[in-house]
């Protein structure tokens, strides 16, 4: 009788364990491959974001250079006009 009871309870315990394991194993989470795919995509996006930031910085730097050169060019044109006028005054 004692043996039967013991067998019964061990059978019950085993059943619970197997059921739970089965339940967990059959859940609908993403597979390892899919998780790896997600991870790789995240890395790709992060790298693209960095590249875009670098390009934006580069664009800003080139724009600044253009503005400085334009300022110099305007100054030079102004000096040219002034020199022309001065030369005329000198020759008179």
């Amino acid at each position, binding site marked *: 009788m004692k043996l039967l009871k013991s067998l019964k309870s061990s059978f019950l315990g085993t059943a619970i364990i197997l059921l739970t394991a089965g339940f967990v194993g059959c859940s609908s989470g993403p597979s390892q491959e899919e998780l790896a795919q997600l991870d790789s*995509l995240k890395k790709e996006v992060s790298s693209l974001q960095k590249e875009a930031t670098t390009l934006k910085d580069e664009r800003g730097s080139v724009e600044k250079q253009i503005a400085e050169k334009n300022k110099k060019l305007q100054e030079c044109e102004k000096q040219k006009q002034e020199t022309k006028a001065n030369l005329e005054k000198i020759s008179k």
Partner: protein
Amino acid sequence: MKLNKIWFFSAVLFVAFTVSSFAQEEMTKEEWQNQITKLSAQKESLQKEKQVLSTEISGLKTNLQNVNSAYINCDDELKKMVVPTKNSDDLDNYRKAVSELVSKIRRKEGNKEELKKELETLQASKISASPEFYNQVNQQLPNLMDKWVEAPTEASYTVVKGDCLWRIAKKKEFYGNGFAWPKIYQANRDQIKNANLIFPKQTFKIPNLTEEEKTKYEKLKLNYKPAPTPAAAPVTK
């Protein structure tokens, strides 16, 4: 009974563990799909942005090259206008000559007429038309020259009673320094036989001191230490 208890507890623990691990699982398949969709869209948008930025940068670089070459041309033309030889040494030499002339005129150093000629030479050069020099050479320096009133090379002084060469030299309108008396002595050797003997109504030439002489007599004045007075002498009122 003991075995049953052990089984019961192990089963409870196992269930708790699996339930908790199930609860902690990062995402469901649906969430994964959502993230994949979101990241893919982000990736696509970033790729487009990158492409647009690259195109913009390339255009800006071309623009920069154009502006740069326009500036180089302008600078070249500007130099050609004032320095036809395009020799940058000419410009440097001119700059140096102007700077030297400015300091000479400011210090009123040398002959005014000679400096005036130097200025005319500088004005005649085409380089003076450059905005860097035009105002300085054609307006400021001529103004300074006009303001330059040459001081008379010598003054004269008629001796009065009580005068001595030291006292004359010390007068503010002359040297302001008694140590410069030998200059008066040297300039009036025809009238002064003995430096300690001068007479009222004698008229002396007082020549200007050169910079060198000024420095020499100033140094003498500064280094002069009067002889110590006797310590024991009582001060009486």
